[in-house]
């Protein structure tokens, strides 16, 4: 029953864009209809997903729905629905007559395909919906394909996603050669030749890693997220890259008794993605590129949790599994919520100022207070700070990592422990990065005309954003309520724990988290009231900023995003390789000069483009073979004939 609700929901999303094709290009009727369909789809889908938690998992030949599917289904149905409402204000059909219909068509298709992936029970169906999702995403990214830059990033995305698909072909082919069927069933222990299992695991890590954006397979991600319309970025960063995680988790659940180095590998990969992701984010001055790199960071955190869970599975440590996997899955939700919140807020900023360049913004908090509030909430959440949801998932992962010291008895695997300080580093860097982003965009004084004439976003844009803030607050304050769902996911991943696995609530102080959060908020309110009261009592006078006695402080004197991050970028220059265009020796009374600094994408600009150019050079060096001389062609035939005659 509930699976039919989910399928209905999928259909709703898949069809949401279709009617619009038959409406006028400059009217918004089609768009409204699309939103209605999407909303209906989401309501049905979420209802079905939650309903299926009350019944035993569905395991058919076509459809398979268990805790894992549900956990991924919920954000997949929630975020795009909000995104399409947001689109009503952000991407009005009337303002984008020639690509609005296409955008909505593929927006719905991508959502539907994402949901389809999570319930696909055999590899053929999986690959089909997977590719529908990947290709719809391509068309979403290239919504404005008249812009060469957009075509460029679209091309990079297309190549990466197809490479990933080919890896998945190999993955499922190997699985079939072991299990003998296309069904996504757990490998029988006896059948698993270690080689095959390892091959499957590595292929999965690479194939799904491309989609998830694990370093160094992330090369497509920053550009695509930056260039796409913001509600598309929200969809991609919020749920689409998570589908890579889903694949990894799902395949992991099918491989019994992994060797411990698998988990170690994932932990290492996660740590690297986490640290480098946030470090690269620090180097950015394009608001959406910055957010995109943070997606890589958060994917890293998720992968750390997953790695810990795998270690736990190899060592038979239920607590690692529960804490690691629950943390990872919860972080999948959380990142889906606060990252789409951030992208939507960024979209509101771009919609109001027509620039993504942070150093041209500033002081927007006065013009757009609601957006500023939403962005601040998202920033606090993504930094993993209490009392919002990011803290909860990171707490779970921390606890698991600390336990790997051997706390709580049982065998220790202290290798994991060293990930804890790394996670702390990630958190601190994230704080630095979001202080920079929030500060340069919303605080201080406007740095350009763009920012000076900003206006608050329409309510159909801020509405979805506030809804997301609500979700973040809910998970942050009442984690106990979501714990059961997470546990179902964990049990779907590691069935052996379903019977006698430890409960999440016993391993993690979720109740205390709520208490601390509430107390924090209470004290904050108290303090602010007190302060306001004192200020009122003692009187307050407005004045200009006191700039240490400097007579005429101007907006251009403020710290820019680049200067804010300059020290940290310096620490990590060995990996960031920042390009600095500094003015040379200046004469006395020099005129206007420019100073620009930019952090290029390491893998894409540093490795891939050169190697592709090289490859193209190699191939074109063979062109002479087809020089148009029929004599040469005939010679080929003779030579080849003789070669084959001498074969044996």
């Amino acid at each position, binding site marked *: 029953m509930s699976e039919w609700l989910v399928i209905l929901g999928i259909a709703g999303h898949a069809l949401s864009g279709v009617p619009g094709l038959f409406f006028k290009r400059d009217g918004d009727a089609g768009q409204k209809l699309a939103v209605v369909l999407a909303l209906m789809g989401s309501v049905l889908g979420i209802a079905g997903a939650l309903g299926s938690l009350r019944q035993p998992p569905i395991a058919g030949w076509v459809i398979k729905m268990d805790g894992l599917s549900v956990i991924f289904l919920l954000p997949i149905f929630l975020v795009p629905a909000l995104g399409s409402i947001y689109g009503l204000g952000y991407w009005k059909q009337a303002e984008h007559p020639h690509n609005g219909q296409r955008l909505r068509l593929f927006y719905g298709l991508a959502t539907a395909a994402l949901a389809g992936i999570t319930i696909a029970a055999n590899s053929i169906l999986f690959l089909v919906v997977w590719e529908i999702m990947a290709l719809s995403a391509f068309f979403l990214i290239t919504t404005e394909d008249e812009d060469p830059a957009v075509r460029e990033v679209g091309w990079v995305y297309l190549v990466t996603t197809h490479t990933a698909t080919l890896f998945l072909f190999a993955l499922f082919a190997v699985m079939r050669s072991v299990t003998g069927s296309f069904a996504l069933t757990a490998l029988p222990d006896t059948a698993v030749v270690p080689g095959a299992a390892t091959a499957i695991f590595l292929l999965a890590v690479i194939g799904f890693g491309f989609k998830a954006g694990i370093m160094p397979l992330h090369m497509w991600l920053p550009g695509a997220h930056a260039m796409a319309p913001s509600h598309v970025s929200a969809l991609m960063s919020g749920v689409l890259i998570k589908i890579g995680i889903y694949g990894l988790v799902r395949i992991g659940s099918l491989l019994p008794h992994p060797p411990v180095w698998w988990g170690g590998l994932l932990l290492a990969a996660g740590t690297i993605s986490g640290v480098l992701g946030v470090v690269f984010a620090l180097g950015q001055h394009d608001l959406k590129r910055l957010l995109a790199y943070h997606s890589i960071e958060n994917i890293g955190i998720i992968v750390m949790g997953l790695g810990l869970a795998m270690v736990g599975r190899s060592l038979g440590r239920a607590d690692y599994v529960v804490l690691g996997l629950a943390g990872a899955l919860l972080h999948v939700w959380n990142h889906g919520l606060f990252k789409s919140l951030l992208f939507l807020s960024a979209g509101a900023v771009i919609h109001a100022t027509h620039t993504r360049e942070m150093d041209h913004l500033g002081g927007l*908090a006065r013009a757009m207070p609601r957006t500023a509030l939403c962005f*601040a909430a998202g*920033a*606090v959440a993504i*930094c*993993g*700070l*209490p009392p919002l949801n990011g*803290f909860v998932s990171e*707490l779970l992962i921390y*606890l698991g990592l*600390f336990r790997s*010291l*051997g*706390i709580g008895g049982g065998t220790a695997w202290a290798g994991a*422990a060293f990930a*804890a*300080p*790394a996670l*702390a*580093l990630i*958190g*601190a860097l994230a*704080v*630095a990065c*979001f*202080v*920079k982003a929030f*500060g340069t965009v919303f*605080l*201080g*004084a406007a740095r350009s005309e763009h920012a000076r004439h900003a206006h608050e976003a329409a309510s159909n844009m801020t509405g979805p954003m506030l809804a997301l803030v609500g979700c973040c607050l809910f998970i942050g304050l009442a984690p106990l309520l979501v714990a059961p769902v997470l546990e179902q996911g964990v049990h779907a991943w590691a069935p052996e724990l379903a019977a006698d696995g430890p409960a999440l609530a016993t391993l993690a102080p979720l109740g*205390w*988290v709520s208490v601390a959060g509430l107390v*924090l908020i209470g*004290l*904050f309110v108290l*303090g*602010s009231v007190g*302060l*306001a009261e*004192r*200020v009122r009592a*003692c009187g*307050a*006078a*407005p*004045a200009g*900023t*006191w*700039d*240490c006695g400097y007579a005429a*402080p101007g*907006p251009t*004197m403020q*710290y820019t995003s680049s*200067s*804010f*991050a300059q*020290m940290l970028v310096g620490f990590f220059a060995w990996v960031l390789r920042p390009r600095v265009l500094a003015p040379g020796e200046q004469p006395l009374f020099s005129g206007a000069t420019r100073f620009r600094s930019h952090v290029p994408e390491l893998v894409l600009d540093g490795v891939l483009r050169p190697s592709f150019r090289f490859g193209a050079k190699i191939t074109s060096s063979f062109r002479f073979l087809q020089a148009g001389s029929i004599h040469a062609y005939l010679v080929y035939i003779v030579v080849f004939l003789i070669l084959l005659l001498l074969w044996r």
Partner: protein
Amino acid sequence: MNHVIVHIVLLLGLPPLLLGVIGKTKALFAGRVGPPVLQWYYDLAKLLQKGSVFSTTTTWVFRAGPVVGLVTALLAGMLVPLGSHGAPVSFSGDLILFAYLFGLGRFFTASAALDTGSAFEGMGAAREVTFSCLAEPALFFGFLVLAKLSGSLSLTTMLNGPFPSGWGVAGASLVLVAASLFIVVLVENSRIPFDDPNTHLELTMIHEVMVLDHSGPAFGMILYGAAVKLFVMGALLLHIVAPFQSGNAWADWGLFVAGMLALAVLIGVVESVMARFRLVFVPTFLVAACLLSAFGIVLLLR
């Protein structure tokens, strides 16, 4: 119950005294009489009475900064045990909440600084967040050592559990951790030799330059919050370096207060005998702190 009350009273009341003691110590070293030990109480009371000036560029963030800074420090103070007494709030994993509360405070104080749109405060905010990026891992390596030693993830048991026995089994690691935590405490609380709370060269300051624009009650909150932060982190450190316990509960309170004052004196001495490092050396020391505590956990695990 009484102990909880005492805990709260100390947490709220003692911090300014520490600052006073530090100041007095420095004055003595400088051969001055110096302000009275209770000077900071007067200052705070005065500031609460003063009118305030708000820059026209600022928003609610500017006012939220001081509040959050103080609130987070106080809440963190409820998580650390004082002396041999357990913390009022203590659960497995509270150490992470402890660390992240300060992160939250940092987020808002730095944002408040940026809200003024002043180049100097931006500079200060940048330095603050940059250095804490290095302080954080050091703190967590320390936590790893303590957790490994105590086999627990709650500050109370971590800090009251293994000592003094801990010194027997893992003295070396504890020395390393203590050293690195001391550096962290000095940096996080902007003390010499890493920062100078009462210099007048804005270019060289870290924390103080962030609050140039605050005034009146808000500024008072900031100063008070900073004092509480010093107190809390000092209490954390004190457990490791001086895990003395007398049998008597109330005597332990005395011991604790004495210890805290001694720590204040120590800080004062350090500030008097050392010159402030050039800014570029601060990261170096923090990396050193990380390495120290990392080495500490390695020693334990070998």
